């Protein structure tokens, strides 16, 4: 449900809500590094986060790919759940392939198409693909991601590879990234 305004400014400018988001992230990062909630530390963190936001904000246009909507945190949580399951499956998959004496691999490079428009969205998708079973993002050109697939069924085309590799993540990422 994003406005046309947000769509036109996809990756060029960064809006005021995004500044607030960056500020919140920096402040949270500070709190995690400090590790306590003393007023003194929080005041210092608030000031430092403000300074960093103002200084670095204009260069952080990658964050403009975020959808700042009420439903976004919910989608983020669902994505995390999906991601963890995929990461654990990936490791069991690696363990199985490495330990089986016949080394069951059929590696090939395939291309995958993404519908995510923003740089941040594509980055997250490529990262997710790298950490999921049997796939490694090699290159990103436009809306095509080149993926090294360790067990590529013969004769896989772009559509099939997209369904198999990217669709699951994309569905979740689309909830909070453009």
């Amino acid at each position: 449900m994003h406005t046309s305004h947000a769509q036109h400014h996809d990756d060029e400018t960064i809006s005021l809500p995004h500044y607030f988001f960056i500020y919140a992230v920096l402040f949270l990062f500070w709190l995690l590094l400090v590790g306590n909630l003393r007023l003194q530390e929080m005041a210092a963190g608030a000031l430092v986060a403000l300074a960093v936001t103002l200084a670095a904000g204009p260069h952080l246009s990658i964050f403009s790919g975020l959808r700042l909507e009420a439903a976004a945190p919910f989608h983020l949580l669902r994505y995390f759940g999906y991601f963890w399951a995929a990461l654990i499956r990936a490791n069991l998959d690696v363990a199985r392939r490495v330990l089986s004496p016949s080394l069951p691999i059929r590696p090939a490079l395939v291309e995958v198409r993404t519908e995510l428009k923003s740089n941040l969205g594509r980055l997250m998708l490529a990262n997710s693909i790298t950490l999921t079973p049997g796939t490694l993002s090699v290159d990103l050109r436009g809306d095509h991601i080149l993926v090294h697939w360790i067990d590529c069924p013969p004769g896989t085309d772009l559509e099939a590879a997209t369904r198999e590799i990217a669709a699951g993540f994309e569905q979740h990422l689309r909830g909070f990234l453009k």
Partner: protein
Amino acid sequence: MRLVADIFLLLGAVFCCLGALGLVRMPDVYTRIQTATKAATLGALAFLIGAGILHPDWWTKLVVIAGLILLTNPVGSSTISRALYIAGVRPWHVPGSDDCTPLLDSQQDKP
């Protein structure tokens, strides 16, 4: 509690060990990157969880470390493999099967 922490630390060690084994067993650089990335990421996270259970007062910093590992590990692997691909390294494929690798424009002259 101590036992749970030990289990996580052991799991981390097992995953890292499998990653190292993958480095030895896999036939080419792309498959090696695959096994090493996944195993090292989950292995490191399991270590962090184990450390977090042993020292609950460290959890904030461990969360920061986990987040940075999750963000930087795949980026590093992708960057290395991208450099290899652009440099023209072809992925190993099963002998006898067809190589369906899409080519860069500059590599179309492959026989």
